[in-house]
């Protein structure tokens, strides 16, 4: 596991606070993710996990604190600049564009100048055969699950090495969930860094190197996969697993 | 002590604001100043408002001026709907109503009132003036391009009657919506009618764009273009190049004689443009009213009207004008033609008077009148 202190973290969040309009949602989040790690954020509904990812992307209202991406401070950068630091973001609500076809949706995110090429369209279609079949359909005419696949597939092309994935197993058939699990394992093997928000603990548990539990906009627990067994009781209490 | 208060309401901000508008208010103010600023020993007050071409605003304002400001004379402006509404208010409130901007002949016919004085022109006068004169000079077959509005219809109907009465023929007409902007299609229809005269029974922007398109399509080479409702501001805006040779009828032209020139220069010094015939009429009408008040020593509308109706008007606007029982101010009108660019010697030197049309020949006659007050 890549955990040498000398390395620059892929993502280093400290004292992150964020607001939606007047409601204060994040109250100081601290998260460090090393390159090549898979980290999962756990928590109840409304705990602020989605908001954490959105805050990293600069999609919330106001935010304060520090967000370093590969060592670059991003708290004051605008959203599109943040993306260019090498992040791929898959939103919870999927964000499939209805005025674009399935394939246009897939090709939409610009390839980032990160130096590493992303997956090719062929590779992606191999991973998600549904998409190949529906490639000329209007984006939002896809079924709920197909849209979810498309949302994930879309950011694999850009060459972004740090992926923020929000509830990607949501609404997918078990077979596809298994395929996604294999995909994440493969991505890690390829050196991607992944931050996942997951409700589906059984999906996330075998994949992640480390876990953070968020409650009311702060981190209340953090532990690595090796500590998972011992933490089960407390997780049970926090999340009702 | 009685006090003279004049309430002037016209279009100050849109379609018709160039022919009267602020300039009209200025002309009225000039008349007041020239009169000495006082009547019956009291300062004369002028109220102005923009009716935005809405009759309800015109009527409400007029009413309010009479009720709360003690207006003794209401001066209505362009736009027939507002004028008719205003005249109605004046009649109900028994105050003098003057108007020089609106063209509707209804003001002195079906809707005539003992308190209305329609001062400058109306559709009948324009029809008779232009129609008659052009048939006389050989324009026998006519095609109308008519704004699909009451004033357009009235112009077309009245002019057709004159043309036919004089032995001419109307070969066709096309009615276009107000603010039609593109006239090429209508003009081609006019052209294929093979008529000699193209009569434009429309006004303002429609007239201007129609003339421009006629020039562009070379219609003016095969047909004689006659404007039925044209003002100096229209000619100014189109330029002589586009309008040379155009004939129309007007009640006044600034370069008509020394008197009118004197007024025009004074006006020009203030407004940086020459007055239109309506603005000149505004001045004259105000003078007429003020003189009457001073003469009868009261603002009582009945007395003032009585005096005005029996006193001929002679000033820079009208020669031997008389206000008839139906409220129409009958005066000379002029058939004018737009000069060729080469003929124009100075700024605003646009028109030459082709023919003087005596008042009795251009306005509604007693026989034609539908006004109950003139029977």
């Amino acid at each position: 596991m890549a955990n040498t202190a000398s390395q620059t973290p892929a993502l280093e969040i400290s004292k992150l606070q964020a607001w939606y309009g007047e409601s204060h949602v994040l109250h100081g989040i601290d998260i460090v993710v090393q390159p090549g790690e898979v980290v999962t954020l756990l928590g109840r509904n409304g705990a602020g996990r989605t908001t954490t990812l959105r805050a990293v992307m600069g999609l919330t209202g106001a935010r304060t604190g520090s967000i370093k991406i590969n060592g670059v401070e991003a708290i004051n950068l605008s959203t599109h600049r943040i993306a260019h630091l090498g992040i791929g973001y898959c939103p919870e609500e999927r964000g499939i564009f209805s005025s674009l076809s399935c394939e246009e949706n897939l090709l939409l995110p610009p390839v980032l100048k990160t130096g590493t090429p992303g997956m090719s369209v062929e590779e992606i279609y191999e991973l998600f055969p549904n998409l190949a079949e529906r490639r000329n359909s209007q984006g939002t005419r896809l079924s709920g699950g197909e849209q979810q696949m498309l949302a994930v597939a879309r950011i694999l092309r850009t060459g972004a090495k740090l992926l923020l994935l929000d509830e990607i197993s949501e609404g997918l058939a078990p077979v596809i969930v298994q395929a996604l699990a294999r995909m994440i394992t493969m991505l890690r093997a390829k050196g991607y860094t992944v931050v996942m928000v997951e409700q589906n603990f059984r999906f996330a548990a075998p994949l992640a190197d480390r876990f953070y539990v968020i409650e009311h906009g702060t981190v209340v627990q953090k532990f690595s996969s090796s500590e998972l067994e011992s933490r089960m009781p407390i997780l049970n209490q926090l999340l009702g697993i | 002590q009685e006090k003279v208060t004049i309430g002037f309401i016209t279009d100050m901000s849109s379609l018709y604001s160039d022919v009267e508008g602020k300039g009209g208010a200025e002309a009225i103010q000039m008349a007041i100043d020239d009169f000495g600023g006082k009547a019956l020993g009291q300062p004369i007050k002028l109220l102005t408002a923009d009716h935005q071409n809405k009759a309800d605003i015109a009527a409400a304002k007029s009413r309010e001026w009479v009720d709360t400001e003690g207006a003794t004379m209401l001066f209505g402006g362009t736009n027939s709907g507002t004028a008719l509404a205003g005249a109605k208010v004046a009649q109900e409130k028994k105050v003098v109503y003057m108007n020089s901007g609106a063209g509707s002949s209804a003001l002195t016919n079906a809707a005539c009132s003992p308190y209305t004085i329609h001062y400058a022109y109306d559709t009948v006068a324009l029809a008779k003036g232009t129609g008659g004169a052009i048939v006389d000079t050989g324009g026998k077959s006519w095609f109308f391009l008519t704004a699909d509005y009451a004033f357009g219809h009235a112009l077309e109907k009245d002019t057709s009657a004159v043309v036919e009465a004089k032995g001419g023929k109307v070969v066709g007409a096309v009615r276009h919506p107000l603010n039609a902007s593109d006239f090429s299609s209508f003009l081609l229809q006019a052209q294929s009618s093979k008529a000699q005269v193209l009569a434009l029974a429309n006004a303002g922007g429609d007239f201007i764009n129609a003339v421009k398109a006629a020039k562009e399509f070379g219609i003016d080479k095969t047909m004689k273009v006659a404007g039925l409702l044209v003002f100096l501001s229209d000619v100014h805006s189109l330029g002589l190049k586009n309008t040379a040779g155009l004939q129309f009828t007007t009640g006044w032209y600034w370069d008509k004689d020394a008197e009118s020139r004197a007024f025009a220069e004074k006006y020009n010094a203030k407004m940086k443009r020459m007055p239109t015939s309506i603005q000149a009429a505004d001045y004259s009408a105000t003078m007429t009213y003020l003189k009457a008040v001073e003469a009868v020593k009261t603002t009582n509308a009945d007395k003032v009207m009585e005096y005005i109706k029996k006193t001929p008007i002679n000033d820079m606007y009208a020669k031997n004008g008389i206000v008839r029982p139906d409220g129409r101010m009958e005066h000379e009108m002029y058939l004018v033609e737009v000069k060729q660019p080469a003929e124009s010697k100075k700024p605003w030197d646009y028109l030459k008077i082709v023919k003087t049309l005596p008042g009795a020949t251009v306005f509604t006659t007693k026989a034609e009148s539908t006004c109950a007050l003139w029977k």
Partner: protein
Amino acid sequence: MNFKNLAALGYGLLLVGLLAAPFLGVYPVFVMKLLCFALFAAAFNLLLGYVGMLSFGHAAFLGGAAYVTGEALKVWGFTPEVGLLLGTASGALLGLIVGFFAIRRTGIYSTMITLALAQMLFFVALQAPFTGGEDGLQAVPRGKLFGLLSLKNDLVLYYVVLVIVVAAFLLIVRTVHSPFGQVLKAIKENEPRATSLGYDTNRFKLLAFVLSAALSGLAGALKTLVMGFATLSDVHWTASGHVVLMTLVGGLGTLSGPLIGAAVVVMLEDKLGEIGQFLTDTTRIEWFSTLGESVTMVTGLIFVICVLAFRRGIMGEIIAWLQRRRGEGKL
């Protein structure tokens, strides 16, 4: 004092003010005109604020009814109450026709259908022989209410109009707080859900449309009675635009907003010149006296400011402010 009482106090004061207005030197005809537009705006708001349907053709109901009433009073010689009834009925009928088509579509498309149908009515009004073209239908007599009470006197007419407008306004308030209003609210919030609960949402929307149109018709009919004419500007699309502005300036979806909005807009139209003159006299800045010719410009400026600075509208902002204060009071 709680919110409800405050509102009741506000309405009470307004009503007392209106009752006493003619005796306080306020010009009754102007207030009547204001009342007509206030009713028009309130009727419009019933549709936009409470059903979420934006009609851009309300001029058709105002103007259509204005012509019918004018015709009834002037040509057919009916008494005013019959004229008003006919006007309202014609508003309702037009509303039924326009609404029938408009509810079949949603959003901007529905709005455009209302605009288009209203434009067709405008065309009819322009072409039809009885409307008098741009001269309008003039000199409509006020007549005698029930053949007995002469409305010639401004003051008498004023109280008649006031009673009618207040009654109509109460009807609107009641409609909003009725079982019907409750369903409308649900439809506005989530139409598919309302459908799945068994409501035939189109019929509810249609009834709301007809109600709004009928009341707009009443406003138009009253306006004819008060002013004595009906003209094209009542059926022109700008009148539809005007009522949108009144509602937004006053506060969309608030009961009192349209009243205030109508007052502000009508005042602007009618009184800006005087306000300008007053400002010139007090500040000695000559420029203000040109305000009278700049009604459209000032109106434009107000819209811009309204949208940028207080988009909840006047009443909307006041209510929000009161609620905030109440919220803080709790803490």
